[in-house]
């Protein structure tokens, strides 16, 4: 009955794994939901946002560019899924590597942004919510990149095929979810 590690993904195993991923993502939605709840509650109670006048919110252009990077990484991921579904292993690898690269650059830019922000995590509720939300999201991006690294390794060994790529689909669900969270995060924490 084991799903991982079998030579062939049967249809039943594929359905089980993907349902498991969806349910897991539901619990992740609630996780981010709780952090967003904290953000909105604390922001609603603050006299101004940021509450202290000497804090400045991050500049939008760089983050906007970063958002575009992450959005396009979802496109390349989906493209990779489509390619392997048609048995095009080379196309899949290209799509996967593009996604990996976009995600890595995203994290690098976010690291740069963290370093150049004029505030830290201990700067009141503003810093607390900002860094907790963004770094929890960043940790999820990092997790996705690690999973993709594993997929890339397996693809290199010829283990990802048209008949055997349920894990790719599972990772793609997760990656799209991480992307959607970022869009919400961008709109509320940065823009609103």
């Amino acid at each position, binding site marked *: *009955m*084991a*799903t*991982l*590690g*079998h*030579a062939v993904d049967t249809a*039943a195993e594929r*359905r*089980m794994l993907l*349902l*498991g991923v969806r*349910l*897991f993502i*539901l*619990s*992740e939605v*609630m*996780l981010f*939901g*709780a*952090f967003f*709840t*904290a953000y909105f*509650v*604390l922001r609603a*109670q*603050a006299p101004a946002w940021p*509450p202290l006048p000497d804090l400045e919110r991050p500049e939008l252009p760089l983050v906007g560019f970063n958002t575009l990077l992450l959005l396009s990484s979802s496109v390349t991921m989906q493209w990779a899924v489509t390619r392997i579904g048609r048995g095009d292993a080379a196309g899949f690898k290209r799509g996967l590597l593009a996604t990996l690269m976009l995600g890595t650059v995203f994290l690098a830019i976010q690291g740069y942004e963290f370093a150049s922000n004029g505030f830290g*995590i*201990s700067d*009141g*509720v*503003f*810093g*607390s*919510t900002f*860094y*907790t939300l963004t770094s929890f999201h960043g940790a999820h991006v990092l997790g996705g990149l690690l999973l993709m690294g*594993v997929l890339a*390794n*397996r693809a*290199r*060994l010829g*283990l990802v095929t048209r008949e055997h790529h349920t894990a790719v689909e599972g990772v793609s669900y997760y990656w799209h979810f991480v992307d959607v969270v970022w869009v919400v995060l961008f709109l509320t924490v940065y823009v609103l």
Partner: protein
Amino acid sequence: MDRWRRPGLARGVLGGVAGFAVGALPIVAAAQLGADIKPGHGLALGYIGAQVGWLLGLGALRFWTAWALGRAADPVDQAAAHGRAGDWTRYFRFTTDHKVIGLQYLITSFVLFLTAGLLAMVLRLELAQPGRLMDGDTYNTVMSTHGIVMIVVALIAIVGGLGNYFVPLMIGARDMAFPKVNALSYWLLPPALLLIVANPLLGGFDTGWTAYPPLSQQANLGQQAFILTFITLGVSSIISAVNFLVTVARMRAPGMSLTRMPIFVWALTVTTSIVLVATSVVAAGMTMLLFDRLLGTAFFRPSAGGDPILFQHLFWFYSHPAVYVMAVPAFGAVLEVVPVFARKPLFAYRLAVLSFIGIGVLSFMVWAHHMFVSGMADYFHIPIMITTELISVPTGIVFLSALGTIWLGRIRFATPMLWVFGFLWNFVIGGITGVFLADVPTDLALSDTYFVVAHFHYTIVGGMVYGLFAGTYYWFPKITGRLMDERLGRAHFWWFTLAFNATFLPMFWLGLQGMRRRVADYPADLADVNLWTSVASSTIALSTLVFLVNAIRSWARGPKASANPWRAHTLEWQVASPPPVENFEHLPTVTAGPYEYGVSASGPVIRPGGATGH
């Protein structure tokens, strides 16, 4: 020393110690270099390292690491991880058989139950007379540890124990959907449980299991042990919930339609859905609390714009539904037992299922009834009061389903059925007294008194623990292949029930007199009743020994049980006792509902798809 070379407990412990060092050493080094670092940083990173080292040493991750590296799965190793019949070592290592994992959960729960029970004895010793035996911090630590350990028991005993063991059997599957995830969910627990039991060494903690800030932000390292344990439990229950839900959704035997599912499976489906949705919210709340302690964030720190009430919302958004994570599986076990011993179909099966779902949905709309005195927004009071009282409708239907099945049945008063009657009695008391805590005006007076303590012990012990005992006595022959001693079983039931009621009924009165909970002392005029309560509570502990003796003796040399000693119709009774490692030689085909006692032909109406271990 072969044992160090193979994955297993010994290597797990070694890995855990090494992992702790790897995690904590950089923090110690940084502290030596003068960085602004607290012991809590070392504990947090050390704990994470210890978990990783423990799981690696145990071999819990070896299949996934092999997969990630692109190595072919080793079928010999996989078979060994599943284990074979009669191999006792599989109970002490990373084993993927759901029946082994179920027993691991059950026995762990029982050990925790005894531990936390002993702590309760310490509390009652202090409360036996006015005045003080121990200092306040010690009392608080004992009280808090008793609370959280019992909560863990209530959360994992039925779901992790009986649920893991019986859900696959009852739906006609060979195992859970993800057996390795299942084993992982269990093996995440030992380090966390060790940490929480060892919290007095870290200075203890005095917030109770609710961990409200600001006290929990200031309290010492024992508090952080609590937070880490809580988060670990959350992760373990989330992955376990995913596993249950996929199993029920995708692995039912042919013919096992949703309306033919045993009610216990339905109960666990609703329960694990609640776990899946609610748990990450409290995990987030606990994470924010941890960050407030370690990273200087201000989530719950009013001086920097934070809001301690926010923590209470996040906490109870999980922790009220958690009450149903404890209670609904017990309802399920009770409704499972009743038709078998009343020899009648389960009354209003479909309505009971709908009520479970109703309870599950409503449980998310009532959390703030724990916060009527917290200073939360006033406009929240009345809606929450109404939703809380609404939940008594589906709960009442479940109760009526049990009563309607018993009504005019040919009752066999065997031990499991006695626990059902005890459950029904306690639940009436627990339910009715709950109304006074749901009503805002009465709650304002009763909040934080022993009335609350009595109420939730009637629901959790009187409900959940009674369901657990009903289920344990019912399924014991299936698990062990041996019958339990009925006389000792009855003695256990009557003794426990009298002692339990003698302990907790007077607490309602104590609460009405204004005796405060979570305080080591009380006014002298309440001395007599408290002494009575303390004596009565110690007899609860003694009655548990009767169960222990009965279980061990019966397991070792009780009379052999047939495959179906209670003549039940559900699938788990159609295989040998104990079930073979693969559960079903051929997967069964289900042709009728599980409770058609006296309706269709007598005897099992489920036709196995071939020869099974009858």
